[in-house]
């Protein structure tokens, strides 16, 4: 789908420019913007190095595990199908904590390990279980405390308050996470309702 948007914007832009008489501007912007992107990436290095370095310290100090413990009671309710001491729960909690710290690279392998465990719990079937969908919903709404990359970009373009958006982002992310959980529940009970209806006919 991203292919369509990417090609679409460039192709529509070029064709539009031919009729609109803006082909010169387009010609210029192709090389300018490519150059911009390189400079932007280089400037991103600063904050990403600093933040990922700091978060490695947090990880080594056991802060991720602490955070996971804090959320455990809530997650027991979110994933009622998982036995409390099953390794899947540990992976899910670590995945969630890593996301909070903005450690996307660390969160992904943990999430995949969690999925693997959930698949075993689901007798190795190739359809998505209830817990898998919940885990996915949590990850797509991604609770993030500090949106590092976007702060770096704001700094690059001389923002007077690069971190002004931290609070608004936290609010938005909390709302989308709560929303994701509620929608997940809604679809679960809808599936369950159908299933009970079907079996009652038989």
């Amino acid at each position, binding site marked *: 789908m991203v292919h369509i948007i990417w090609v679409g914007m460039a192709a529509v832009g*070029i064709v539009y420019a031919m009729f609109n008489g803006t082909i010169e501007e387009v010609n210029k912007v192709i090389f300018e913007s490519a150059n911009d992107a390189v400079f*932007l990436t280089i400037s991103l290095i600063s904050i*990403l190095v600093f933040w990922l370095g700091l978060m490695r310290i947090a990880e080594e100090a056991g802060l991720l595990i602490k955070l996971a413990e804090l959320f455990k009671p809530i997650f027991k309710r979110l994933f009622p199908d998982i036995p409390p001491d099953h390794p899947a729960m540990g992976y899910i909690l670590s995945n969630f904590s890593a996301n909070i710290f903005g450690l996307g690279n660390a969160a992904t392998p943990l*999430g995949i390990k969690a999925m693997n465990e959930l698949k075993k719990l689901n007798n190795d079937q190739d359809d998505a279980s209830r817990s898998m969908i919940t885990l*996915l919903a949590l990850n797509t709404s991604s609770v993030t405390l500090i949106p590092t990359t976007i702060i770096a970009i704001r700094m690059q373009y001389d923002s007077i308050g690069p*971190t002004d958006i931290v*609070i608004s982002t936290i609010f938005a992310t909390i709302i989308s996470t709560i929303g994701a959980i509620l929608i997940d529940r809604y679809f679960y009970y809808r599936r369950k309702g159908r299933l009970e209806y079907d079996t009652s006919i038989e």
Partner: protein
Amino acid sequence: MILQLSNYIIPFIILFVLLYGTYKRVPTYEKFVEGGKEGVTLAISLLPFLLGMIVSISIFRASGAMDAFVGLLTPLLTIIHVPPDIVPLALTRPISGTASLGIATDIIKTEGPDSYLGKLASTMQGSTDTTLYVLTVYFGAVGIKKMGDALKVGLIADFIGIIASLVICYLMFG
């Protein structure tokens, strides 16, 4: 008040992590360098994604096609307080994180990071993750073929995140 708080969060986290790490006898500086190396790789790996998307949207914008597209949506969107310029970002957000990062960057660059649109784009980019990416990676890695309601749940959650960003930014910065 809330803006003040925003400024305190990051220095506080840094202080806390450094002191707690020292208390737990973590070799802080070594670990910092170790983790920092990942930051270099991450930034460099973003380059082709950002470059591709930024060039494409720059063409779209410079040609005048974007203004025409936004102009079509303006009457409808202004009624509900949605700035039309945010539409390309909102549409791309659930599909690709790196692509939408490119678009958010373009908005921040042209409108200014401290403008209303710049703050809205920042919030929107930071608040949700890419459903299609998460779905592909997580389910692909363990071989789940029947996704059930996962795609629907993810996309609706993204939609809520986008609406939430709009409302919150309108209340905080509008």
